[in-house]
């Protein structure tokens, strides 16, 4: 009995705190959830993805580098991918996997003051080209790397 009352109180307190935080502008709230670009995450080609993100055909660039990214990944469920951009005024970095059901894996917005370099881990269904798409000064640039995925017992 007593324990239940406490839970209720705590739950209530938590809600109040969250509301206060949201009111004070500390929590991004629902506005942020709406920022998820559904169209872009449903595309199946590089050009369509760029278009959904609001750009035109990307230019190949040698100023985008993959770091800490393997040529051969043993486990397609966890493939480390790092992208750095040497293009001035980099605004965002996106990672795309050509042969995944939906190409776009992630978009990172880089505000001024943040290094244009991110690392994460992605899933890959099979060996495929991976694109690093960089938006800089309103234009799109792309670099490609092939990652081979060895599934099953033959890898290694």
């Amino acid at each position, binding site marked *: 009995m007593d324990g239940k009352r406490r839970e209720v109180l705590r739950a209530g307190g938590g809600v109040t705190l969250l509301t206060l935080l949201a009111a004070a502008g500390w*929590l*991004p709230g629902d506005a*942020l*959830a709406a*920022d*998820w*670009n559904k169209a*872009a*995450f449903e595309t199946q080609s590089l050009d369509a993805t760029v278009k959904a993100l609001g750009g035109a055909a990307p230019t190949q660039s040698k100023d985008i580098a993959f770091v800490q990214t393997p040529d051969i990944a043993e486990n397609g*469920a*966890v*493939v480390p991918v790092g992208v750095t951009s040497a293009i001035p005024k980099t605004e965002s970095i996106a990672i795309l*996997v050509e042969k*995944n*059901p*939906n190409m*776009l*894996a*992630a*978009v*990172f*917005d*880089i*505000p001024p*003051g*943040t*290094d244009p*370099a*991110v*690392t*994460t*881990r*992605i*899933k*890959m269904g099979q060996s495929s080209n991976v694109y690093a798409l960089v938006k800089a000064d309103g234009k799109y640039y792309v670099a490609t790397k092939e990652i081979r995925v060895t599934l099953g017992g033959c890898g290694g």
Partner: protein
Amino acid sequence: MADPMRIRANVVGDSTEVKVLMSHEMETGQRKDASGKVIPAWFIQNVTATWNGKTVLAAQWGPAISKNPFMSFKFKGGAKGDKVVITWTDNRGDKRTDEATIA
């Protein structure tokens, strides 16, 4: 609510390097369970990192990010003792916020 994130923030030169490990299933919506039913997608959609109230990274993720997602990035500035706050929101509307002190 999901398990807490593990966040490490370290000063490297004049920048702060942040590494985050989140705890999330990241279900793609492509897989089927034993009875052949599609397991509904459940993944983190938005991630934001703030330092002193300023957004230092905002990300949109699809289901192709690995289970228990990891990410790292660097931003200019940040002093020992400052706080870095990371928030994620998933496609079920669940969210979690954790903070770390820059070391």
